[in-house]
């Protein structure tokens, strides 16, 4: 699992690649911590795999961000990652966009 973030207009876009699992989720939480009060978009187009541990990490980040006045949205989900997010009902409380442009437009 690797992350890299950049500012794009009003949003911070963080690309998360590789595997978000029971081993790597702690690192993901730490990488997100500095953006708690931002409009953070997670670009998951390079994410191959996510487990319930990864979902737990994303839920925890979303709750912290809401408390800190930030917001979290996701984009670029496909394959197993898209399936896991939707069957778990995470699309009920997290905005999910097709790509970075649409996610940024949502934060404008």
């Amino acid at each position: 699992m690797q992350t890299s973030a950049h500012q794009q207009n009003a949003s911070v876009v963080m690309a998360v690649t590789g595997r978000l699992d029971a081993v790597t989720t702690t690192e993901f939480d730490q990488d997100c911590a500095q953006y708690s009060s931002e409009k953070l978009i997670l670009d998951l187009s390079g994410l191959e795999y996510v487990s319930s541990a990864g979902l737990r990490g994303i839920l925890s980040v979303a709750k912290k961000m809401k408390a800190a006045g930030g917001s979290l949205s996701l984009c670029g989900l496909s394959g197993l990652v898209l399936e896991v997010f939707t069957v778990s009902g995470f699309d009920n409380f997290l905005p999910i966009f097709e790509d970075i442009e649409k996610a940024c437009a949502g934060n404008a």
Partner: protein
Amino acid sequence: MPLSRTFEAKIAVIDSLIEFVGDFATEQGLPPKRSLPLQLALEEAVVNICNYAYSAPNGEIEVKLEHDGNRLTVELWDEGIPFDPLATEAPDLSASLEEREIGGLGIFLIGKMMDEVRYRREGKNNVLTLIVSNNP
């Protein structure tokens, strides 16, 4: 031909356990698109054993593999306290961000990813069986 290997029951073994099962699955012709769902079910099952079945360290998980030409059967044996993951309550999938809790999601995902999941208590062992077909 049945195959088995024993792993320490800890989160750090998940990658090597997944590799052990994945190598066998590939040899037996499980299609690549079934690979990630299988990996997910294995991770969730091992995390559950580590978190619930064993209260003390030094537990073990024995993995037994069998393939009948169309279906891969993975049995996970542990000697922890009796724990039937299939008897746990289903998560509330419609909860809002504030109300959302994460418990039960791992088991729920195993059920979504596998064609069949069974639990039995055999002697002093929990046995979780995961079945995935070449052609679902």
